């Protein structure tokens, strides 16, 4: 290594392709994420429930095991759409907790320390910056939601046979779609809030607030105005409506799935707008 060179030398060597620059950001952000023991522990914790589900699938497909457990029939654990919906719901909650810890730390330190001009003075756009940061959350959350979901589906398919697989193939698609929607909502919300307040801890608290107080506020609106429209303020409720419709589970709700989809897309658009306004090299004061 030529560290003895103390004079300036220009560079005229090969360059990496332009499309790969956001991967640089992804690589560094991901490395930083797992430097925290708490976040690593939380990430590991997210695999406990998939492991339990794996055991349940094994048990459900091996009657002898169930009989040894006390003569329970195969109806005790039924591997169907409800099973996978509950899996996604549990993993969705864990994904939310993980996002509350990791998401705000992705953008707010850059904004707080004025690092954006350093990123954006390079051949690197704002869209690539947002994409690079969002991809960290997207990959991490995918690893705990739809990827283990598909593994469970594959295990169940291999144990139950081709007939079951063919009849329930749509569940795999529902798992991927519902997980991706939740990941997009969580990522955009976490990044928009952290870009807005520029303070990691406050952004994390705000994310929790939006979810929990949003639900409380929605109930209050419903009670005071004697309406059901308050649910539009409750992201968790909207997400639940979409999930139950995707997994073909009957649920009586005051909001139809198309309405829930539209509301969630509007939330995403608002978050994206906030992000685009904040992620600038310098703010223009008009």
């Amino acid at each position: 290594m030529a560290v003895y060179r103390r004079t300036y030398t220009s560079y005229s060597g090969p360059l990496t392709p332009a499309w790969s620059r956001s991967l640089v950001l992804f690589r560094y952000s991901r490395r930083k994420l797992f430097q925290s023991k708490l976040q690593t522990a939380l990430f590991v914790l997210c695999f406990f429930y998939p492991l339990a589900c794996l055991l349940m699938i094994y048990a459900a497909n091996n009657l002898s095991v169930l009989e040894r457990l006390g003569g329970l029939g195969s109806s005790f654990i039924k591997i169907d759409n409800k099973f996978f919906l509950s899996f996604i719901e549990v993993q969705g909650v864990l994904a939310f907790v993980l996002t509350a810890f990791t998401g705000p730390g992705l953008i707010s330190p850059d904004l707080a320390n004025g690092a954006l001009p350093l990123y954006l003075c390079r051949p690197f756009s704002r869209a690539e910056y947002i994409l690079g940061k969002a991809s960290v959350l997207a990959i991490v959350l995918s690893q705990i939601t739809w990827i283990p979901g598909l593994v469970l589906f594959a295990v169940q398919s291999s144990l139950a046979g081709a007939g079951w697989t063919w009849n329930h193939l749509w569940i795999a698609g529902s798992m991927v779609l519902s997980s991706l929607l939740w990941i997009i909502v969580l990522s955009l919300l976490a990044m928009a809030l952290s870009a807005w307040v520029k303070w990691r801890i406050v952004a994390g608290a705000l994310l929790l607030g939006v979810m929990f107080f949003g639900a409380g506020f929605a109930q209050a609106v419903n009670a005071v105005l004697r309406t059901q429209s308050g649910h539009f303020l409750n992201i968790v409720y909207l997400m639940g409506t979409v999930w139950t419709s995707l997994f073909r589970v009957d649920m009586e709700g005051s909001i139809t799935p198309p309405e829930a989809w539209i509301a969630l897309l509007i939330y995403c658009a608002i978050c994206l707008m906030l992000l685009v306004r904040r992620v600038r090299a310098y703010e223009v004061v008009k």
Partner: protein
Amino acid sequence: MSTTLQPGAADAISQPTSAAPPTPVIELQGLSVRFGKRDILKDLTCSLRGRAIGLLGPNGAGKSTLINTLLGFYKPSSGSARVLGSDIRTETRRIRSLVGYMPENDAFISKMSAVSFVQMMAELCGLPSSVALERAHEALFQVGLAEARYRELGTYSLGMKQLAKLAQAIAHGPKLLILDEPTNGLDPSARQRMIRMITDIRDSRQLQIVLCSHLLRDVEDTCEEVLILNQGRVAHYSNLEEERKANKRFLELETYGANGDFTEAIEKLGCECAVTANRLKMILADGVEVRDIYRIAAERDVRIRRLNFRRDTLEDIFLKAMGS
């Protein structure tokens, strides 16, 4: 898409040769920038070609806005500008690949070591990871942060943060280095170190420098050309070297034994003189050389103890520009 490495874009800009005139570093054609109802830059037109160009002006003159516009952070409301021959409206990405930028304000990533930070910034410019790491080490050695390069940036002092910012600006080997107030907040010795480093980089002749400052001393120590901005307009453009040469007609003499006869003889040559105590200030007329002054002094037995060319300092130039 191919994952093969592309030839360096840095090669695209040819080095100035004696045969062809060098590409202007910055070329402005009626450039204006407007924020809301406020005109920040007003109809700037100039062409800068020097190896080290100083952007001077009082606070709020529009220096940083001009730099940010050249980097594509702000959109011009009218006019055009080119940086190293590339249009700022259509070739922003190319400009950014050729430029190293050291911003004015604090800019760092707190939970990252200096070497990782500089490496990441070089990688974002397109350098392969191993090359970026090597150049990050080199850059940190060069700016004098070798011992502290594994420390987190958040623990750095202000002076060290400035040096780290300089390191990230040069690590990818740019063709143009833009420094926005590089000596901000530095103590005198740190300021001297920074100025020495900038002159070293300039003298390597491998890149051109634009230094933006409101400190005349910084610009005078490092730059060859100066663009003075005032209230968003070009107040003055000067080539310091040429200005200094032109000022060689201003003389200041300290004499012994001079009298009115000596002054009269000089004035008869067409020179303008002003006498204070035993000092004589004069502006040489055309065709009059310094040896003529020595001859007149010898004829009248006047001893010249000291003869100086009184150069206009940058401060004089700046104050004149502000006055106009």
